């Protein structure tokens, strides 16, 4: 029985992790790209990584917190512009190819040994070198607090402060996206998803709208990346292609083109993976699958889940069947 309790505890703890929130923020950004605008961005992890580097490197260079945050946002904007100017005039598939390549370029450049003094090369940047400006903002006193069955430091590396900030941002960004999508701006964006030429024939500058969308989603990705590395460390390989596909899975699970879909998807994604891992660990004897293997097994199941989702429920959990979003 204890083992099951532990699985349930792990699931719930994973749901509220700051990295889950960071993941949700990036998924909201991807949803602006894919769900609402129909842009096939296969390099959301690249936006996250560039945001993470932007924050970490500028903080290490001595920037105060808010300036470093601006660098993060600026990095996201710049990366979106760089990607968008040559590709947004082309058909959707090309953007997918370019974004996946660009994300890889960011990762490869980040781990290049020539840049060891700046990015730490393939070792990355340890969290304590850039985390303090953020922790210093905490209004909470030292010590630990227990809410429900969770006990964490108030401020600490992985404490309540970053959880509260990150999840508040998730809510704020979801509301901002909702505000955008109910407006005429959102209507044009969704029109572009359906048929660019039709929108063009109605006198809208499609390129400018797509660029705005790419920038917003990209900035959300960059901020997601910043919060992803705040409680951990900057590891270029942790924000590689895998990360992009996990974000896609989370977004599709919750429901693309919905406001809360990416958030729900991110939470469920982590909880379900822990559930699969924990259950398999308990049920299957070690002789067949040991603990390390069950983790790999759970990731395999994530891949299977993505396939099943796309085939049988392309609109995700919250999505509207009629507005299902899979004929790009």
């Amino acid at each position, binding site marked *: 029985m204890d083992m099951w309790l532990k699985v349930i505890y792990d699931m719930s703890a994973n749901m509220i992790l700051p990295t889950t929130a960071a993941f949700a923020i990036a998924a909201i950004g991807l949803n602006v790209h894919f769900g609402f605008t129909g842009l096939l961005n296969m390099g959301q992890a690249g936006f996250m990584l560039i945001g993470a580097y932007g924050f970490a490197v500028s903080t290490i260079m001595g920037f105060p917190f808010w300036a470093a945050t601006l660098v993060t946002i600026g990095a996201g904007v710049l990366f979106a512009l760089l990607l968008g100017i040559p590709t947004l005039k082309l058909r959707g598939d090309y953007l997918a190819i370019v974004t996946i390549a660009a994300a890889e370029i960011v990762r490869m450049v980040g781990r290049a040994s020539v840049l060891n003094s700046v990015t730490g090369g393939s070792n990355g940047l340890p969290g304590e070198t850039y985390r303090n400006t953020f922790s210093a903002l905490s209004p909470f006193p030292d010590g630990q607090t227990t809410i429900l069955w969770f006990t964490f430091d108030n401020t600490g590396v992985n404490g309540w402060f970053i959880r509260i900030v990150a999840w508040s941002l998730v809510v704020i960004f979801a509301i*901002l996206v909702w*505000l*955008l999508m*109910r*407006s*005429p*701006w*959102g*209507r*044009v964006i*969704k*029109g572009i*998803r*359906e*048929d660019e*030429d*039709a*929108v*063009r*024939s*109605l*006198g*809208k*500058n*499609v390129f400018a709208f797509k660029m*705005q969308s790419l920038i917003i989603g990209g900035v959300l990705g960059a901020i997601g990346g910043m919060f992803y590395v705040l409680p951990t460390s900057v590891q270029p390989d942790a924000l590689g292609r895998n990360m992009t596909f996990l974000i896609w899975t989370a977004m599709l699970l919750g429901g693309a083109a919905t406001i809360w879909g990416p958030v729900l998807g991110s939470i469920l994604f982590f909880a379900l993976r822990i559930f699969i891992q924990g259950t398999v660990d308990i049920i299957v004897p070690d002789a067949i699958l040991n603990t390390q293997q069950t983790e790999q097994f759970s990731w395999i199941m994530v891949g299977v889940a993505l396939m099943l989702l796309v085939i049988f429920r392309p609109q995700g959990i919250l999505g509207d069947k*009629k*507005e299902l*979003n899979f004929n790009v």
Partner: protein
Amino acid sequence: MSNATQKTATEARAELKSVPHTPGAPKPDAILVVDNIVRDFGGNRAVDVDHVEVQRGVITALIGPNGAGKTTFFNLITGFDQPSSAKKVFGGPSADKAAKWSFNGKLLGNTSAASVAKSGMVRTFQLTKALSRLTVMQNMLLGAKDQRGESFLAAFVKPLWAAQEKANIEKAEDLLKRFKLYEKKDDLAGSLSGGQKKLLEMARALMSDPVMIMLDEPMAGVNPALTQSLLGHIQSLRDEGTTVLFVEHDMHMVRHISDWVVVMAEGRVVAEGPADTVMSDQAVIDAYLGAHHDTDLGDDSLLEEGAMDAPKKEKK
């Protein structure tokens, strides 16, 4: 429909009486003037128009056999395609041979499709482009011009655009009623029939109060009863002062409502004139009408026998 505009519509038609029936004839009050527009697809010259003018305030039909370059011509002047004869920085045709076209006194070469539409020339497509996963109402609202809520920052603050949105919704409801789509306003556009999508597309184009509306085969797939009321809509548009240019294969419709007919064949303008005279023009008969030029092709019995298709097939 004030008296003033109605008068200009009738006047505009009267002015056409003095226009010679030759390809590229100058019009007394041309809204669209096109020069030297050429489009090559590989070795195939799809459009090769030296000069053509469209009179303001009338209904002009563009007809021609399949593959005559009508839709390509549409795409070129609305900015969806670039002419091969466009002016280039290096090389390209000399200045007097370069493609040049002006709409409402404004030069349009090298203009994006969006700015062409903004300048008041709005088109529809042969294969309808209804935005399937938006509702009929959202489709309509997309057509409205100069929306404040379409700028990124203003989008967050509803009071900035709410009033304009309300006015647009009322306008859209009026148009939907006119096109018999009002009951469908909250349905997804993808659920409409082919003919209804045509209607929606036309209504959507009208949301922007275009100076000139370009309809690419507006009647294809629309049932006969609806065709009658659509013809009425198009005529009342003209009477309200909108210039109409349309591509159509339905000769009955062409004869019925067009004030002027431009005939294209193999990319060139081969004849121009009022519907009744142009259809007896030898070049047109050669190109298009074949043996059936003298009969009313709108006659349903002829249509059922496939008489319309016969000359086209011969041509191919």
